[in-house]
């Protein structure tokens, strides 16, 4: 318990980083995922192939490898730097890797949502003369989003938990690393572990409840 009190500020600061990562990645992955699913159903075959390959490769790569590669491959080799401060730079590399990884799952969720939209909706949209982008953005995607709120909620929960893997990209400020660090210096401490678990549950459980509530509220009555 003493350890918990002594390291509480460091742990809280680390956990705040997790929350920041999760919030930023949520925005980026939803945008990127929507773009990917648009490409996935587009009339242009090249776009469909590009999106399909990207999603399948990313989805089948371990997140640890994605993040480690975004540090070694993208930053060190391709010279992608966001900031001259190493810690800020690796923060944004984690954002990049985690957003790309999560967007693949967002894309798959949205695609299954598009599959639930009845054929008649798209046919009606075409028959009144809407173009592909109009029928997608006005008719199909809004209904698709509403039917996959709950799965998107689980994707976001998984993403929040995945922010702990940021260590793999050399980002050494978030709570999993802080916890490992304190374990290294003082030995294992159950209160520290439990309080971090509680902190994560305090973030993920509301996401789950909100998603469930929104899913029921927004469900398309058919």
């Amino acid at each position: 318990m003493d350890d918990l009190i002594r390291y509480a500020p460091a742990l809280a600061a680390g956990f705040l980083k997790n929350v920041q990562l999760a919030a930023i990645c949520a925005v980026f992955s939803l945008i990127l995922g929507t773009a990917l699913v648009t490409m996935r159903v587009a009339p242009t075959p090249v776009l469909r192939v590009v999106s399909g390959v990207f999603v399948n490769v990313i989805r089948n790569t371990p997140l640890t490898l994605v993040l480690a590669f975004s540090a070694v491959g993208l930053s060190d080799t391709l010279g992608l730097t966001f900031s001259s401060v190493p810690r800020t730079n690796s923060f944004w590399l984690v954002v990049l890797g985690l957003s790309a990884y999560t967007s693949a799952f967002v894309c798959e969720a949205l695609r299954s949502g598009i599959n639930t939209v009845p054929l008649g909706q798209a046919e009606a949209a075409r028959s009144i003369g809407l173009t592909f982008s109009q029928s997608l953005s006005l008719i199909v995607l809004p209904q698709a989003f509403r039917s996959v709120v709950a799965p998107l909620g689980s994707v976001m929960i998984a993403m929040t938990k995945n922010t702990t893997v940021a260590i793999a990209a050399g980002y050494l400020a978030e709570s999993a690393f802080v916890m490992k660090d304190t374990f290294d210096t003082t030995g294992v401490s159950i209160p520290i572990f439990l309080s971090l678990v509680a902190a994560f549950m305090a973030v993920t459980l509301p996401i789950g409840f909100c998603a469930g509530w929104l899913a029921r509220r927004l469900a398309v009555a058919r």
Partner: protein
Amino acid sequence: MSPQSPVLFDALGPRGQLRNNALTLLATIAMLSVAWFVYAKFDEKGQWSGQLWRHFLSARTWTEFIGPGLAATLKAAALGAVFALLFGAAFGLARLSDHTWIQRPAAAVVEIFRAIPLLLLIFFIAYSSPALFGSGDYTRFALVTGLTVYNGSVLADVLRAGVLAVAKGQSEAAYAIGLRKGGVMWLVLFPQAVTVMMPAIVSQLVVLVKDTALGYIIGHQDLLSYGFQILPANYFGTRVSSAIVVGLIYVGLNMTLSALANRLEQRHRRTAVRTVASPGASATVVSLRYT
């Protein structure tokens, strides 16, 4: 609305064709320029020099580094999968128990372990094991235990959803011919639940195989640590090339498993008319797949 049945757009007219061709051209140019940029940057850093790739031609790389790494990854994955399936079956059925004193604790265990970030759990097990069981190397133990309780909890929910999705008439018929609770579950409901949920189970196993890479962070000598640390230490400067090859092995491994899941799903869909899944089941599968 899969890409095979493009109902979002009509067969393109002349203007649409033109626009489509223009988009194709633009997209191709964009992709090629990205590829060229990557190629040029790699070239600039000398990543294409034969020296950095030659070691993949020698047998030693494969027998001494990648082989053992892959074996360690597969071993952890296999152990994790077996224990997670057992854990999932035990807790999934326990959650369906009529006895509150079994059902409540099982529900609590499943919900808590699903909510803990896996890496935190693995760290905790890795650091607390020496205190509990004496000193030693606990990296694989921590990894397998973490994978077991996390994926087992997800599988418990999958199996529970599967049992709940079996049509009511099945259990009623089973009770009517005189089976008891255990018999109804083991002989009638559980086998059907496993069949219905097979695609979800296999895709959770893909998640498990991917998560074995977390072992890299706690120092488990698996495929990823051979690619990122041990190979570059033995062949100087090969970090990026080794990472790429190891990444390809991971992608190949998981894509094979994913393809298996898809095939099972299609086969299930073909036979779904005969079997018992209620509409709720497929929605549950969707919501559980992305954890």
